[in-house]
C-alpha cells in the first residue's frame, strides 16, 4: 500500500489577507511590463522582427515572409521546369480531386511543330477560383507531373469576384520556375 500523505492547504497570512500588498505588487508588475513594452524590450520584440511596441508586427510595413516555414501552404500555383516548359499536361486530375471545385481546366493539344510536341497536351486555360480554394493541397498531392504547388503567396486580394480568379498567366507568375524535380520529358538528370 502506498503511503497516504495528507497535505494541508496553505493558509493566507495577515498581509496576504489584507490584499493591499498584492495590489501594489500587481500594479508594479503591470507598470514594469509597460516600460519594457515602450522601450521595445518585451519578449519576442527582436526575434520576431516586430514593430518594437510589444510583439505586434505592423503588417503592411513589416512582413512575416522571412519567418514562413518551408511547408507553408499558400496559394496553389503552376510551375515551369528548367527549360521554361510548363510542366502541366492538363490531365485534369487536380480538377477532379479539388474538394471545393475551385479548379477549371480547358486542355489543348500541343501543335506538331512545337519543341515539346511529344508531351501532346497542355492547358489552354487554367483557372483557380481563389474565393473557393481551401488550401488543402490535394491538387499538389495528386499531380503526376509535379506541376502544381502551394507556394508561399498569401496576399490574395481583389475588389471583385473576377479579380479573385487566378488565370494561367497569374498562376505561372506566382509559381515561377522550380528546379530539382523529376524530369520525364527531357534529357536533364
Amino acid at each position, binding site marked *: 500500500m502506498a503511503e497516504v500523505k495528507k497535505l494541508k492547504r496553505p493558509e493566507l497570512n495577515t498581509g496576504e489577507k489584507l490584499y493591499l500588498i498584492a495590489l501594489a505588487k*500587481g*500594479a508594479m508588475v503591470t*507598470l514594469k511590463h509597460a516600460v519594457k*513594452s515602450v522601450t521595445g524590450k518585451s*519578449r519576442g520584440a527582436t526575434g520576431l522582427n516586430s*514593430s518594437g*511596441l*510589444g510583439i*505586434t508586427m505592423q503588417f503592411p510595413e513589416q512582413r512575416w515572409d522571412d519567418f514562413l516555414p518551408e511547408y507553408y501552404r499558400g496559394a496553389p500555383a503552376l510551375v515551369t521546369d528548367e527549360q521554361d516548359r510548363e510542366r502541366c499536361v492538363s490531365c485534369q486530375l487536380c480538377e477532379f480531386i479539388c474538394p471545393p471545385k475551385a479548379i477549371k481546366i480547358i486542355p489543348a493539344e500541343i501543335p506538331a511543330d512545337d519543341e515539346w510536341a511529344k508531351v501532346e497536351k497542355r492547358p489552354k486555360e487554367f483557372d483557380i477560383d481563389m474565393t473557393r480554394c481551401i488550401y488543402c493541397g490535394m491538387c499538389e498531392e495528386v499531380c503526376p507531373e509535379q506541376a502544381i504547388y502551394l507556394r508561399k503567396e498569401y496576399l490574395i486580394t481583389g475588389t471583385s469576384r473576377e479579380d479573385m480568379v487566378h488565370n494561367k498567366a497569374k498562376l505561372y507568375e506566382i509559381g515561377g520556375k522550380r528546379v530539382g524535380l523529376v524530369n520525364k520529358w527531357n534529357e536533364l538528370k
Partner: protein
Amino acid sequence: MDILILILITMVKIVGFTFVLTLPIIAYSVYAERRFSAILQDRVGPNRTGIPLTLFGFKKDIPLQGLLQPLADGLKFILKEDFTPSHVNKFFFWLAPALTMVPALLTLAVIPFGSELFGEKLVIADVSVGPLFIFAIASLSVYGITFAGWASNNKYSFFGGVRSCAQMISYEIALGLSVIPVLMIFGQLNLTNIVEWQAQHGWLLCPITFGGENGFDFGFYEFGGPLGILLLLPIFLSFFIFTVSIFAETNRMPFDLPECETELVGGYHTEYSSMKFALFFLGEYAAMIVGSALIVTLFFGGWSLGFGLDALLKDDTDNWVAYAGLIHLGAFLTKVIAFILFFILVRWTVPRFRYDQLMKLGWVVFFELALINILVAAVIMAAPNMVERGEIGALIVLIIGVIAFSIAMFVIAKSLDKKKAPQSL
C-alpha cells in the same frame, strides 16, 4: 447690466469647461485607454487614423499616431443606425442615456479648474456645498443605468441595472463617510477655498510647504503642533476608501459588474446602439474624470502647485499674477490626467470582484472603517485643546470610547463575515 455680464461670463465658463475642455479630455481618455492598455498587453492600439489625404487625391495619408481616432469614433457613432428594439419601454429607453451623461457633466459645475484668470475664478459655480453637490448629482446617474437595464426588457440588461443600483448605493455611504475627516480639517465645503487652503498649507496628503523661517512648514501645525502629523493616518485611510469608492461609483474595472462582459453580454447597455450607446460610454468616462478631479481637489491640492510654490505666483498685494490661472489650470489638468492613467493601470491590474465580495467590501469593511476613521480623526483634532484646558480625564474616556467602538465594529464585521454552515438535505 451687471447681471447680463454675469450671465455672459457664466455662459463662457460653461462652454469653455464643459465643451472645450472636458469633452475632448473624455474623447482622448478613450484613446489613452486604448493605447495604454495596448502597451500593457504587447499590442500597438489605434495608431493609423490620421488626416485621410488620399480621399482628396493625394498620394499619402498623415497617420499622426492615430491621434484622430476619437474623431473617427464619434463620426461612426453618429452615422450608425439608431435602433430601438420593439420590445423595450420606449420612454425610459430614450431617457436613460441622457440620465447617465447629464449628471456626470453637471457635477463639473463646482470643480475649481484654476485660480483666477482676468479676475474671474476658474469655476462655473462657486457654491459652498461643493462635495455635497457632487454626491447628490452623481448619485442620480444610477437612475440612468437602472432605467436602461429595466427598459431594455432583457434579462441580462436587467441584471446589470439591478447590480449597479445595489453597488452604487452601497458605495455612496462609504464615499460620503470617508470624506468627513477631510472636511473636518478644512472646516468648510467650498471647493475653491479648500484648494486655496491647500495652496497655503500644502497638499492634504503631503502637507509640507518649503520656504518660510524654518526652511519648511508643516501644514497640520494648527492641529496640535508636531503631533498633527498623526492626522496623516486617518487622511490616508480616507483617501484609500474614497478612491476605491470612486472606482465603484464610476463602474470602473475591479467593480464593473453592471456591464461585465463575461457574465452579462454587454450589461445594461446590451440593447443600445449608435449615439445612445455613445452617451453611456461617454458618461462613464465623464464620471471617471469628475471622480479624478474630486480626488485631486480634495487630496492632491487641486490646481495648487503645492510645496509652497504657489507663493511665487502672488504679487506684492497678495493677489495672483496675471498668468497664474493658466499655470494652475495646467497643474490641475496634469494631475487629473495622471489619475486617469492610474485608473487605466488599475483596470489591467486588478481582476473583477465577485458580487458578494463587492457587497461585503462595501458594507462590512469600508462602512465600518470609515466610521472608525471619523472618530479617530476627531479625537486627534480635539486632543490638543482638551489637554490645554486640563480635560485629560475626558480625553481618556474619549479614547477608550473610540477603542471600544472599533472593537464592537470589528466584532460585528467578523460575525457578518462568518460562512454559513452547509445545509443538510
